[in-house]
């Protein structure tokens, strides 16, 4: 079936109707001025984040579709680092909220005018895979995903694998949101449950005229199961990768195909610097430098400083890496950037007992210090 004709998620009976109606009510009742929410593009190929101010423009809403083309933490940062001059409800996945929490702590985003609506996440496919899947999947793919979620399973499709970052993600459920769209264990007929998480969320739902719902009874158990499966997988992937890069030769070999395009940095939600040192004049070398370096070493790889780039980026932001894996998805040569950051990050974050995205109160390790610590070195 062709998705352009199909799109049952926009029809009245779709399980996603409740979501759409809730977002619509928030706009109609003036609870928020805009909703940031994933929607199908008209051709149905992909789902993109949309910023919507008109209730009628929510017809293709789909926060379930397993695709994430950009971590929206950076989108919410753009929207809120200055006053957005209006209230915004942002519909986001767990890894997006985690990254946003980090950005808030780095003062790159402000949640005063933002209501976070977290959505249970089954994981996502690479956009190129997703585009194929929706053209071959019989019926609507998001329906299929919802069915899997309600049964507590991750969607599986022969010939396609979810992004590695998602397969080893320990956060199938969002934290730090005001309202939760509960999909794990949700009743097939009634669709996702919309659950207020805190007072702000409860108030928002009330104003929108929506009855607060309870999370599905089976959800906590499902999440425990999914989390522990993924954690086990994560440990394995991380340990294997730590082994691979435990020698310089191993690390250099893994990143041999890096050409320092810096797409990973571009897509990283944590790399927020408007002016990155790697694009600054510091890295515009005098022409004669190259020959000097070549003479010193007899041979150098061009472009230079590929390993320096990754090691510096690790030093600068691995403490706050949430493992969303957009770096790996962005790499034209498929390098294991996410694996590198998770492998190194686990140990570095442990030093400071820091979990990125866990709390808005905990200070990012490199922005603070204790007078008595880390001695003797």
């Amino acid at each position, binding site marked *: 079936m062709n998705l352009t004709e199909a799109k049952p998620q926009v029809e009245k009976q779709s399980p996603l109707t409740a979501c759409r109606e809730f977002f619509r009510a928030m706009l109609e009742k003036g609870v928020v001025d805009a909703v940031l929410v994933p929607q199908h593009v008209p051709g149905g190929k992909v789902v993109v984040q949309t910023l919507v101010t008109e209730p009628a423009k929510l017809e293709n809403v789909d926060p379930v579709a397993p695709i994430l083309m950009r971590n929206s933490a950076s989108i919410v940062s753009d929207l809120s680092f200055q006053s957005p001059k209006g209230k915004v409800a942002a519909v986001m996945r767990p890894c997006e909220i985690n990254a946003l929490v980090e950005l808030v702590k780095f003062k790159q985003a402000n949640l005063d005018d933002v209501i976070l609506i977290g959505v249970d996440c089954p994981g996502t496919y690479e956009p190129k895979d997703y585009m194929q899947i929706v053209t071959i999947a019989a019926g609507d793919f998001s329906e299929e995903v919802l069915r899997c979620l309600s049964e507590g399973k991750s969607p599986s499709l022969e010939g396609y694998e979810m992004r590695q970052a998602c397969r080893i993600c320990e956060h199938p459920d969002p934290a730090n949101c005001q309202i939760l769209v509960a999909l794990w264990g949700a009743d097939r007929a009634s669709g996702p449950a919309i659950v207020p998480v805190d007072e702000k969320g409860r108030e928002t739902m009330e104003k929108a005229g929506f009855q607060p719902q309870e999370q599905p009874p089976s959800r906590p158990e499902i999440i425990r199961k999914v989390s522990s499966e993924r954690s086990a997988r994560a440990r394995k992937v991380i340990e294997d990768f*730590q082994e691979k*890069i*435990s*020698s*310089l*030769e*191993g*690390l*250099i070999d893994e990143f*041999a195909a890096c050409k320092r395009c810096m797409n990973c940095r571009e897509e990283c939600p944590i790399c927020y610097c408007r002016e990155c*040192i790697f694009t600054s004049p510091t890295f515009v070398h005098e022409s004669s430098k190259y020959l000097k*370096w070549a003479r*010193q*070493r*007899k*041979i*150098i*790889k061009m472009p230079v*400083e*590929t*390993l*320096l780039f990754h*090691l*510096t980026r*690790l*030093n*600068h932001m*691995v*403490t706050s890496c949430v493992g969303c894996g957009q770096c790996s998805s962005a790499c034209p040569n498929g390098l294991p950037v996410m694996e590198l950051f998770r*492998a*190194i990050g686990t*140990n*570095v974050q442990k*030093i*400071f007992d820091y979990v990125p995205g866990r709390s808005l109160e905990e200070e990012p*390790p*490199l922005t603070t*210090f*204790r*007078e008595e*610590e*880390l001695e003797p*070195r």
Partner: protein
Amino acid sequence: MSRFEPKILGFVCNWCTYAGADLAGTSRIQYPPNIRIIRLMCSGSVDPLYVLKSILEGADGVLIGGCHPGDCHYTNGNYKARRRVTVLKSILRQIGLEDERVVLRWISASEGKRFADTVTEMVEKLRELGPNPLKEMWQI
């Protein structure tokens, strides 16, 4: 065969360690001539990038010198340096590079002897470790 002479790069703060190094000189304290010093205003202004660049370009060791805790001219730059160096050393260890190549040491303006001892100690340690393996790797 001639003895391996390690090359050390020193990022030292203007207020304490640089003055300490100066004192070592004016007091005529002998120490190995293997260090090249770069003066910065504060150990807190040492971006890990500087250390990494030095090491990737073949420095055998890097010394970061700052004021003793509580003595930072800018109140807390040295505390921040301590966290950054901790992260850096953890990363170096994990990729199979000896983290002893990077040393963060508090050396005050009155500690000429401590500066000289630090350099001596580093040279001995680096002789033990041998040359920085990255010197022989071009594919970085």
